[in-house]
């Protein structure tokens, strides 16, 4: 087990190198001169432009820029963005907010998705099942920004249950609505995954055996059906954490959350390669760790799986 985890950690090194190289290259190849973003509509003098280029190493070829960045990362210096702010500070500012948002969304989709999915699966073909299926279909098919604006307008503006936007503190109650919007689509997927999986397992031999043994219905459902149905769901949730963190751009935009998505969006527009690469690399690491966690969870969920 420990050996397995160590191997997985070692795998992160090539992932890190490959990801940073690829990302840096992508941002580097974006059309347009980064100094144009700094200078704005009215432009700079050539002298100012030249010093900006020198300051941010923009006059260097790709490989030099990349290795300078890599050197910085290895000495724990991520550098500064075009406003002269430490990238490490920016990351420390925005990641906790987005992490809070993503975890809240994840909890929301996991709890509601699994509960609704379980009951729908157990009542296959009944009224509850059909209703839930239709609702989840609607949620999946409506674009997230429509749902976001709609919920913001209804709950934030009309009913005034919550503020339409999130303040700087990004407290629990403020993040509730954005988290629900963010988790809504995944909620529908979790629900459908759980339902299918539950239906499959409910007819499995070991469930019939358990029932025949005289085990109580709650025990059969919770231990034998649900637990075994969790493997595809856990896989999905693990991958989704990364997607929620990096993919919250739309939701963060609607609710004005100062998070990873917004920061990334601005950095891409300005062509701030070090910012983009740093943030995305952190996202990749989170993604990898979440996947590792899911893999370890398999062994707990299904005793037939062993790691050595």
């Amino acid at each position, binding site marked *: 087990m420990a050996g397995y985890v160590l191997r997985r950690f070692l795998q992160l090194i090539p992932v890190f190198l490959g990801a940073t190289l690829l990302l840096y290259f992508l941002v580097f190849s974006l059309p347009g001169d980064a100094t144009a*973003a700094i200078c704005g509509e009215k432009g700079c003098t050539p002298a*100012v432009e030249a010093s900006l280029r020198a300051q941010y190493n923009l006059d260097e070829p790709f490989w030099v820029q990349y290795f300078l960045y890599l050197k910085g990362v290895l000495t724990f210096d991520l550098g500064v963005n075009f406003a002269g702010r430490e990238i490490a500070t920016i990351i420390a500012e925005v990641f906790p907010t987005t992490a809070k948002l993503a975890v809240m969304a994840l909890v929301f989709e996991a709890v509601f998705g699994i509960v609704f999915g379980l009951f729908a699966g157990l009542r296959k073909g009944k009224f509850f099942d059909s209703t839930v299926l239709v609702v989840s279909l609607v949620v999946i098919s409506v674009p997230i920004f429509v749902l976001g604006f709609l919920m913001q307008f209804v709950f934030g*503006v009309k009913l005034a249950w919550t503020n339409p936007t999130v303040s700087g503190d990004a407290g629990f109650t403020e993040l509730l609505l954005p988290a629900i919007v963010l988790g809504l689509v995944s909620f529908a997927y979790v629900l459908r995954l759980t339902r299918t999986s539950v239906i499959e397992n409910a007819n499995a031999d070991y469930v019939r055996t358990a029932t025949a043994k005289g085990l109580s219905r709650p025990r059969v459902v919770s231990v034998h059906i649900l637990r075994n149905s969790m493997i595809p769901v856990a896989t999905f949730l693990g991958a989704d954490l990364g997607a929620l963190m990096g993919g919250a751009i739309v939701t963060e935009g609607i609710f004005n959350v100062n998070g990873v998505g917004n920061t990334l969006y601005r950095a891409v527009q300005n062509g701030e390669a070090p910012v983009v690469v740093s943030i995305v690399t952190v996202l990749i690491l989170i993604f990898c760790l979440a996947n590792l966690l899911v893999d370890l969870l398999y062994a707990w969920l299904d005793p037939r799986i062993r790691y050595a």
Partner: protein
Amino acid sequence: MRSPRTPKLLSVAAVALLALTACGGGDNSADAGAEGDTGRVIIADGSEPAQPLIPTNTNEVGGGAVLDLLFAGLISYDADGTPQNEMADSIDTEDAQNYTIKLKEGKTFSNGDPVTASSFVDAWNFGAAAKNAQLGNTFFESIEGYEEASAEGSTVETMSGLKVVDDTTFTVTLSQPESDWPLRLGYSAFYPMTAAALADPATYGENPVGNGPYKFAGEGAWQHNQQIELVPNESYDGPQKAQNAGVTFKIYQNDTTAYQDLISDNLDILKTIPTSDVKNFKNDLGEERSIESPYAGNQTIAIPYYLENWSGEAGKLRRQALSMSIDREEITRVIFSNGRTPAQDFTAPVLEGFDEDLPGSENLEFNPDEAKKLWAEAEEISPYNEAEPLTIAYNADKGDHKTWVEAVINGLKNNLGIEATGKPYATFKEARTEATGGALTGAIRSGWQADYPSLYNFLGPIYTEGAGSNDARYDNPEFDELLSTGLAASSVEEGSEIMNQAQEMLLEDLPAIPLWYQVAQGGWSTNVTNVEFGWNGVPLYHAITGK
């Protein structure tokens, strides 16, 4: 500039004095403010300043709006754009080239440091010196010695044209006479800075110390990408004195979100109604909470002269034909719900010296028959190269340009029968890179927002040869000559007349096609009153009060 001209002494000084004496009667907003609740903290929409808050290094509206409250320059502009003295006691000159500037006694920064002649001179030298790479660098270009200080790699740190006489007096020598130069002194690049600021600008930019109507609420009042909290500066005593208990700029990623906060009373003032809500904001907010106020900005389409179809005599005729086939009236009505006004010249109507009836302004009127005729004439001179159809480039990341570009294009197709397409650029920087590099393959939308209220500000930086924003690469020595003469005129009025003569050339040549003037569309919450927008489309934050 409405004052009679006094011989010898330049009118600017006189106007400044007049503005000062007229203060009691003219400053309506401050008077009215007495009726409202001065204890309210105003929550306003803002955008994250792109750079640390240093006056000489700020060239965008997000930072500019904050700086304008934190600092007071030699002069400031009232709601109409009329200059009024702030730190300056007098700005005197006899030849529009050598200025003597006297400061008021006893003015201080919010930390208690006195505002002296060196606070200005050192800040301006800092802004101009190449080694500091300040984005507002070009604002000092008129001062003698700018060339030496700003040249690439230069180690010169001072401009020879600036001399401190005593604590409250300094002299400025320009490299040529410019009668509208004092008008610029209210722009943020010309604000004074403390000695500590220049020693460590990065630290200062995080917690700036100014001499204006407001100051930072404390260390770290700027929570990046969230809000900037300002409170009144008690040591400030001038025409912009705060009528509220503070202004908090809440930073929004987009206007649509801010609008939701406005209609639910979580935001007190929104200076730009998002395009998607332009049609309904007056219904949502009511007449008493919304405003449409023209400001000094315009929208144009620049057509580079390096495009073969659009150069020479034929190009000139085609430009005129193009301009006449755009129905500005209809587009401003239908697309902007009258939130823009059709252009009649290259500047903006709120400026002193604006003339709506310049000879040649008929080229900006919708006239499809004449347009077809002109186009046919151009065809006789040299045929239009169909292989290079017209494109109109715009940036798709900021501002909603797509809708009106499409409307303009439809006008060209229907009225001229030529092929034209919109060319969206994903980002602003991409569009700018091609424009400044002279690599455009078609026309590009370009807008201008005034830095200071003067006709020259709309002409010099855009249409003179080699100017930074001359996207069209217009090169007309006669025009340049006339602008210099206009600058050197002995008064701003006289100068404006000459500038307008220069504009006649532009109206004939059309290096860019003026489309419309900007109108600020804003709104405010049920909690505030006394809202007025200034000549530059920015609310007069200091005058807003609670209800």
